[in-house]
């Protein structure tokens, strides 16, 4: 997406004495490379990959842990909140620098802390800095016959620190699990600049699993300055299958049959007709353009199991009325099949200037109902919505396409997004599967959890991060009990 046009006049708000003191201190400590406060820089860091945006006080770009500690202690001393950030590929506004009570936060980017600190091939683990890009780790370990399983679609840009902070998912979650399962230990820096090693490397804990708590903390519990990640051996065999269907229902029913078959596929992705048409035009992945839906399936592991899995999948797809079943014959064909899936966001840019990407989850058996509901919501709001689904996980990513220059379109986009979420909740699903709560989903938490549930969440947050300065207005609703979820927080512009 292009940077959002300003919908409110830009103003260089005068600094408070605390802000001036903070900026002067950081300017001396970090130099011009490490602190940016110009209008242009601030515009660049207004938003993440969501379209919620707000004006930060400035941007700190520490290159080392010591520099980061200086930044966080300065925030503490001057009582200025901060918004942690890495690549900014988040989709829920978690890295959007919204302030509380009109106070602009400092964006603290860990993008320059991007080293692979240690690759332990024998024990299959890597120690990384937070700014290291996910795909870069993948390439580094592939050379050693290993793989890092979490593979969010944004992996060529998204960082491992961001993956930890959002408990990212990806295409291979079905059998490999979400990010948390691949994080052995987290080094979390608090606002005193102290690093807490939240160590999960021992098989049995002496204390609480604060590692697990910190994964998915969305920058509200401190800043991830390092992580030990679990690596797996690269699978000796991979089988990939593409199946086309006449109806969404048939594709969804096939997913149900696959999930209850005697071997789980490692990846089950679904794309609807609109998504197929868009990516075929853009990436020529070889999808059947007359299909209502395609399933992309992958089995990994030892040869006989993979082969049996692909056979089973082909049979089940056929039994559910697949019009076309293609088995990837080699690595090139496999890459081509996946190219279409990974090209969705790029392809959309050719079609519409803006998109709003939702992230909801329903029990897998409700997938068909949920897909029907999304289609109906799009028709009702007069919006093009295309469905890209981590179907094996019941995790839908409807892309709502629009052009913000169209009068009143945003209201319809928000209404569609809101209805998609409430529909998922009504089907016993949840409001976010892997993108996180950020600010976008924050107020929905009152519909998911009771007041007691949220009170405990708040108490745990305060226990982990007592200063209240780390990404203060994210994740938990500001007013517990708020009935109507707001898509846009106060102070943020779209």
């Amino acid at each position, binding site marked *: 997406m292009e940077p959002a046009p300003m919908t409110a006049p830009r103003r260089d708000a005068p600094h408070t004495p605390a802000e001036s003191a903070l900026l002067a201190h950081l300017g001396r400590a970090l130099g011009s490379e490490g602190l940016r406060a110009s209008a242009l820089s601030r515009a660049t860091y207004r938003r993440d990959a969501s379209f919620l945006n707000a004006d930060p006080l400035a941007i700190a770009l520490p290159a080392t842990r010591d520099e980061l500690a200086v930044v966080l202690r300065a925030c503490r001393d001057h009582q200025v909140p901060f918004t942690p950030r890495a690549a900014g590929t988040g989709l829920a506004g978690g890295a959007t620098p919204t302030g509380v009570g009109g106070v602009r936060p400092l964006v603290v980017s860990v993008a320059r802390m991007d080293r692979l600190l240690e690759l332990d091939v024998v024990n299959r683990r890597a120690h990384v800095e937070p700014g290291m890009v996910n795909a870069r780790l993948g390439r580094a370990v592939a050379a050693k016959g290993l793989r890092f399983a979490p593979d969010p679609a944004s992996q060529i840009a998204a960082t491992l620190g961001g993956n930890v902070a959002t408990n990212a998912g990806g295409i291979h979650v079905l059998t490999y699990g979400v990010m948390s399962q691949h994080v052995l230990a987290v080094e979390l820096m608090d606002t005193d600049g102290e690093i807490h090693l939240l160590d999960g490397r021992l098989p049995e804990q002496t204390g609480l699993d604060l590692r697990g708590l910190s994964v998915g903390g969305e920058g509200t519990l401190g800043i991830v300055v390092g992580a030990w990640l679990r690596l797996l051996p690269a699978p000796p065999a991979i089988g990939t299958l593409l199946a086309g269907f006449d109806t969404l229902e048939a594709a969804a029913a096939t997913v149900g049959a696959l999930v209850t078959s005697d071997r789980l596929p490692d990846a089950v992705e679904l794309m609807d007709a609109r998504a197929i048409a868009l990516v075929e035009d853009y990436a020529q992945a070889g999808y059947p353009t007359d299909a209502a839906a395609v399933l992309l399936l992958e089995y990994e592991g*030892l040869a006989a199991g993979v082969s049996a899995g692909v056979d089973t999948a082909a049979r089940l797809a056929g039994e559910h009325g697949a019009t076309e079943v293609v088995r990837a014959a080699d690595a090139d064909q496999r890459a081509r099949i996946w190219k279409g899936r990974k090209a969705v966001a790029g392809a959309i840019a050719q079609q519409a200037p803006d998109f709003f990407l939702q992230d909801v*989850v*329903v029990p897998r*058996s409700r997938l068909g109902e949920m897909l029907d509901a999304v289609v109906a919501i799009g028709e009702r709001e007069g919006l093009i919505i295309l469905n890209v689904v981590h179907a094996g996980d019941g995790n839908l990513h409807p892309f709502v396409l629009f052009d913000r220059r169209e009068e009143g379109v945003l209201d319809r986009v928000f209404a569609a997004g809101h209805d998609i979420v409430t529909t998922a909740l009504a089907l016993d699903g949840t409001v976010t599967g892997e993108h996180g709560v950020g600010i976008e989903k924050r107020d929905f938490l009152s519909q998911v959890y009771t007041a007691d549930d949220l009170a*405990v969440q708040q108490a745990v947050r*305060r226990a982990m991060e007592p200063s209240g300065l780390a990404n203060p207005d994210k994740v938990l609703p500001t007013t517990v009990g708020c009935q109507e979820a707001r898509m846009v927080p106060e102070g943020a512009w779209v």
Partner: protein
Amino acid sequence: MSTSTAPPAELAPVVDAFAAAAAGQRRLVIRGGGSVLDRLPPTDAEVVSTAELTGVIDHRPEDLVVTVRGGTPLQELAALLATHGQECPIEPLAGHGSTVGGRVAAALAGPRQLQAGRVRDWVLRVRMVTGDARVVTAGGVTVKDVTGYDLCRLAAGSWGSLGLLAEITLKLRPIPTQSAWFTTHLPAGRILSTLYRPAAVVSTPTGTFVHLEEHPDDVAAQATVAGLEPAAAPRWPTAARAAVDPARLREVTALAASAGLDHTAFEGVGVCLVDGDADAIATFGDRVVRLGGHLLHLDAGAHGGPARATTTDAMGERVRAALDPHRILLDPRESR
């Protein structure tokens, strides 16, 4: 929505017991099947049992998800799941009577953790009665859920120090097509680097045992590659268990051997189980701690002190106080 329904009436006795303990400044310890608790040094804390909280609440085979009450025996759950060709690979470890709640709360590692992952990774949702007598739910019934902080991970391995696990939703998987134990004289390190993701590798003084869970043809092929012979599942000592970084397991195994202890190691997992002279085990435990690990005594009679060395962890203590502000809940590994 199931998550925001009123707490079930069956939890009222637990809520009342917790509130009364807070008012009377008494300490409580939570007991599941007793398979672990009964092997720890006794405490003077009052016991709160999950024995009345049993049974499956909701099994959705088509979603690979099951929700059970915390006191449900693991074997009962496993039998039900098996009728659907499904399992949750968190095997009972410490003898008969393990409950789902106890298994999740203690989160002891079994050998299958090598491939199947940790107990905590199979927990999707928990409903717990916290130390401040609130009934709280976290997580959901879908396999992906990042809605709010991940209190499910916090509950797993919390040893009852945060609350009583009243309901647990677990992720399931199909039972592997074939499952078989083998033995070999090759060292465990060779097996781990030769085979693709074996289910378990267990080393004992008499040899290495390998558990394979795969397609039958793959099991046969893997066995041939590594020269494995069919074998019965190994038995392991139970008096104490050392947990260490798996990278240091070999050092720990060597310590156990030199101390004359019977020992078995869960390779790639980092657990070494030992049996033998109580003083030798205590000395072994001190050495394990020096290697960055810890030792859990599971022999109530053999040891008068705490079952593990207590650690100070300010952040963890704050989190514990957030759920149990009156400190009514005892982690049974702690000294009384």
